[in-house]
């Protein structure tokens, strides 16, 4: 018997949707051994890590709070990834969005009105878009790798936020802590359900996911993005502009990341602090791939990543699992997913090997 690997003539759709499940299973198994290696009771820790966050209604509401920004950012990123445009600086665009929204909230701190929140959202989206425009411009004008520029800009954005909250925007009554004033009620997102932290931003995120689905499956522009990504030569013949696609990708992903930053600042955080998120902009990359760049898949993947955050916190308290384990899980998941993708492009068959009978 011999193992034969042969390319599939067409990628198998069934396998494409089955691989994320397989990847999750493999990650859980690896996690078992990782916990064993760390000297923890593996079954108990896995239970805390994966099951505990989903046991209560409040637990689910907290998953929504965490999944919200991940889904929103990943939805935007997925558009670009389809077109082979690699914006990996969503964390920076998120930060700029939060700075824009926070600037509005602080500027009108002594005023109230229903117009403040929409203005914050506008400033947040604009901030993310402007920050996304830099790599887009450098890529389309000078062919500078958008991967490197968008990532470098993330470091710059974090430092920029630091300048503001350690300096001019610091809360005058904040005992010198690096944080701004708490936003007033007019600048905070209304809650959807009392007793939870679920805010209206989560509903906007759902709407954005649906809009992205319509855009990618029903609109010409979605088709154009896919063609530019999968068949650049065909795209040129069809008159689909590569540069326009790059701009579109960065405007959408920068805008959604900026909006996610707005929602974080005006939602669960309620002010600006030096590190606004636990790296949602980077985790969203995993969410986009795990969700197969499909809006519905992204929602499911967002919840899974939310579980890894909240479960990580629970296991940190219950089992003294180091916080970094969450990152290891997320990285491992992406590895397994990429490895499993092999199965959707290649067929593995057991074939009896034919021995050639020659004169001896």
């Amino acid at each position, binding site marked *: 018997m011999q193992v034969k690997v042969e390319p599939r003539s067409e990628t198998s759709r069934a396998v494409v949707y089955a691989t994320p499940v397989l990847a999750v299973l493999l990650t859980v198994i690896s996690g078992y051994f990782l916990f064993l290696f760390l000297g923890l009771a593996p079954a108990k820790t896995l239970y805390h890590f994966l099951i505990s966050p989903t046991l209560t209604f409040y637990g689910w509401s907290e998953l929504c709070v965490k999944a919200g920004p991940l889904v929103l950012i990943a939805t935007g990123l997925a558009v670009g990834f389809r077109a082979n445009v690699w914006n990996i600086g969503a964390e920076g665009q998120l930060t700029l969005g939060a700075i824009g929204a926070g600037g509005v909230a602080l500027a009108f701190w002594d005023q109230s009105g229903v117009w403040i929140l929409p203005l914050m959202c506008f400033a947040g989206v604009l901030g993310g878009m402007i920050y996304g425009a830099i790599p887009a411009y450098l890529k389309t004008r000078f062919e500078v790798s958008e*991967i490197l520029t968008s990532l470098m800009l993330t470091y710059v954005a974090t430092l920029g936020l630091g300048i503001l909250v350690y300096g001019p925007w610091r809360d005058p009554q904040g005992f010198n802590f690096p944080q701004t004033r708490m936003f007033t009620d007019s600048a905070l997102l209304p809650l959807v359900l009392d007793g939870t932290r679920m805010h209206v931003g989560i509903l906007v995120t759902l709407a954005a996911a649906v809009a992205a689905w319509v855009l990618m499956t029903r609109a010409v522009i979605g088709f154009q993005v896919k063609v530019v990504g999968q068949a650049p030569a065909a795209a040129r013949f069809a008159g689909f502009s590569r540069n326009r696609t790059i701009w579109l990708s960065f405007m959408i992903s920068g805008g959604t990341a900026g909006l996610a930053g707005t929602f974080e600042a005006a939602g669960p955080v309620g002010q600006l602090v030096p590190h606004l998120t636990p790296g949602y902009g980077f985790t969203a990359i995993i969410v986009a*791939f795990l969700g197969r760049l499909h809006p519905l898949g992204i929602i499911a993947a967002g919840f899974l990543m939310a579980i890894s955050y909240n479960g990580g916190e629970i296991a940190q308290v219950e089992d003294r699992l180091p916080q970094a384990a969450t990152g290891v899980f997320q990285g491992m998941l992406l590895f397994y997913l990429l490895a499993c993708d092999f199965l959707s492009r290649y067929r593995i068959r057991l074939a009896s090997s034919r021995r050639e009978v020659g004169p001896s």
Partner: protein
Amino acid sequence: MISESIVNISAAVISASTPLLFAATGELVVERSGVLNLGVEGMMLMGAVTGFAVAVSTGNPMLGILAAAVAGAALALVFAALTLTLMANQVATGLALTIFGIGLSALLGSGFVGQTVPALPKLALPGLSSLPVVGPVLFGQDGLVYLSVALTAATAWFLKRTRPGMMLRAVGESAESAHSLGLPVIRIRYLATLFGGAAAGLGGAFLSLSYTPMWMEGMTSGRGWIALALVVFGSWRPWRVLAGAYLFGGVTILQLHAQGIFSLPAQVFSMLPYLATIAVLTIISAGPWRGRLTAPAALGKPFRPSV
């Protein structure tokens, strides 16, 4: 007095450049074989934490350095298996490598935060190190600094003058042609990727054992990405990459000194290396010399030999 501070600053510049030089030289070899590994940051962090942990546990920094190279190569092996054998997307896999490396290094290092390790002994070359001014700068560094320069020289010689080096370049220019000539494309790419991982691991070990002898989560703070940019900046040539690494080491030290002189927030200066990276990439890509034209033609393109 003045010459003394020049000596100190120059020595600091060399020190700040060395991790970049290791990582960038490694990535240069990887890219010349046609593979784009964006996981440099993750491999550096794994090297940094492994080198530190082994040096603290055994009390032997040499073992730490060795372990760091092995750890970097081990992570690179995962990348190679995914992209070269399982044909996964190189960009996505490289990103995964970085995310995984950041997490795993933080996990492994959580018990080592706050511990100290004696800095690597300075390796003064007898005679040369007592030369005025240049002596202490050039010949009073620790062993890894000499190794990084030697690695550059060896890489330049290997790529240009040796048969395996030419085979590696051929694979990077066109995997199909190389394959039809009977070159083992996949094996060469595996070896190049492993070398890149080991070099990145050494760069990380220099950070945690010499530059700032301690372990801190995410202590590379983007140096892996700057190293990737340096390969472009050096247009895939070892000595130009070395020049770029020293230029960036200079920017790093310059901004540290500028923080004491100008009364601006420290973050403004910390931004400089990142902004300089963007500026330099733009100039290189826009200039008449068009560095990108010298990129290996098969860079990032997957190849699977049809049996």
